[in-house]
């Protein structure tokens, strides 16, 4: 039965959802701190260092500041949609975490609990669906602001996200042809088998070009530099969130960091073995310890990706808009198609 649900399962899933969502919120919170520190190091400054040791209380201070600021809703905006915009942005940012396998099973109170909220057989497609819905928060918010610069920012963001979704999808198809499954958990399990401590089993070895395309598209989907044209302040004042203030602005900015974290986790799941710690044989430990190692592996990989995101942001200047579109349509999509054809040919050649 699909919907035969026991009470224990509901409680278990609710706790898991609460833990995973709050962990991603905390990671995103400290990503803002990390970003400022990385920027400071790259620019030979000190960065935030007043609130707490090394400034680690800075995100809390920032959050408080945003909460206490005056909330302004423009007079001629449609008020419901104006509030719906940032809410949708946050919702779609956190929804993706449902299908990510954060680790293997743990045993608690005599129950075997899988560290994945929903083990659906369409895992990757779910991620893709939620990513394609991510546009709505920005579009609705920008339109409801009743401001031309907001609208331009929103339209830029939407066309950018749609354009790069295509290349992202095609690069994923090549990966799916190798793995033969859409299930994220199975993809991770497949990657655990491989020579040299499991490293050679990772999909990055088989799909280096596909990973590169996916990485570039992930940057574009998160509206990160060099693709942050949606909020280019010297052209568009502030982009789609020009009219937003207080915590509604905070939600827009925060959802970017959650998106970054989630896409880092997805990249490590798809191409870098997910919760597979290289050179460690998980089956030698008790299940709980092995699960802990797995969660640690995912988090380490995700944090490395986050650092990469920040490193790129403070190193590479922004694209011009026509360059962005040319890169997406004329370079990445043909490259992804070629990658797909080459993967298909290789599969046919080696399976004979």
């Amino acid at each position, binding site marked *: 039965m699909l*919907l035969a649900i026991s009470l224990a399962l509901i409680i278990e899933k609710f706790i898991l959802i609460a833990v995973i969502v709050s962990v991603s919120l905390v990671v995103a919170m400290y990503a803002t701190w990390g970003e400022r520190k990385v920027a400071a190091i790259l620019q030979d400054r000190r960065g935030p260092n007043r609130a707490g040791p090394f400034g680690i209380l800075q995100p809390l201070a920032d959050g408080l500041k945003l909460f206490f600021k005056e909330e302004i809703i423009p007079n001629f905006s449609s008020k419901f949609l104006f509030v719906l915009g940032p809410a949708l942005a946050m919702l779609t940012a956190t929804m993706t975490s449902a299908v990510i396998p954060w680790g293997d099973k743990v045993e608690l109170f005599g129950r075997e609990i899988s560290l994945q909220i929903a083990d659906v057989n*369409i895992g990757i*497609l779910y991620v*893709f*669906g939620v990513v*394609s819905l991510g546009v*709505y928060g920005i579009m609705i918010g920008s339109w409801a602001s009743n401001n031309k610069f907001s609208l331009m920012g929103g339209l830029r963001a*939407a066309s950018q996200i*749609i354009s790069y979704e295509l290349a992202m999808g095609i690069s994923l198809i090549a990966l799916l042809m190798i793995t033969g499954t*859409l299930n994220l958990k199975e993809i991770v399990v497949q990657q655990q088998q491989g020579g040299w401590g499991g490293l050679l089993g990772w999909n990055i070895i088989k799909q280096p070009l596909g990973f590169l395309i996916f990485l570039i598209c992930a940057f574009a989907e998160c509206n990160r530099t060099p693709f942050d044209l949606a909020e280019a302040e010297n052209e568009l004042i502030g982009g789609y969130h020009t009219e937003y203030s207080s915590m509604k602005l905070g939600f827009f900015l925060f959802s970017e960091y959650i998106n970054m974290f989630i896409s880092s986790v997805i990249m490590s799941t798809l191409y870098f073995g997910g919760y597979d710690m290289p050179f460690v044989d998980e089956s030698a430990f008790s299940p709980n310890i092995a699960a802990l190692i797995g969660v640690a592996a995912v988090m380490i990989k995700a944090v490395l990706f986050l650092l990469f995101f920040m490193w790129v942001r403070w190193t590479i200047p922004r694209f011009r808009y026509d360059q962005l579109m040319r890169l997406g349509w004329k370079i990445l999509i043909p490259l992804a198609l070629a990658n797909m054809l080459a993967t298909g040919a290789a599969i046919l050649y080696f399976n004979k």
Partner: protein
Amino acid sequence: MSITTLAFILLSVMAVTCAIMMITSKSPVNSILWLILVFFAISGHYVLLNAQFLAIVNIIVYAGAIMVLFLFVVMLMNLNADTEPVKNYRLQLIGVISGGSLLLVLLSAIMKVKEQHPVQMNIGDAGLVKSLGMTLFKDYVLPFEISSVLFLSAMIGAVIIGKKEN
């Protein structure tokens, strides 16, 4: 009443209400947002039928891509409730007649079905990726490929129309 029935009723009410709201709301942007909710309700129905693939593809293609383009156009043209022109009487009459005929055609098609397959809740696997792929690429491979060529030619046609000025 089982959870499945309850979910079915909730989703149906949601789908019908959102569809009515989509038709009756004056502002085009609101109409589109209601239509997106209709797609979500329909995807929910697919999930109830254990057709997860159809559900998610419905969301990716319709809610995630086509509706974004609709929204895009409406926002760029800045269509609001107040800019909507008053439609004349004849146009309304034509609309009613053509809409009514479409409804008749659909109704007769549904009535004509002699053999009624009861809906298979939960157990059917027709909508899962594997069985769908097997059907599409084995039994219906020719129509599938022909329709993909059709889509490609439509895409190229759109590009050519867009380039006409140069």
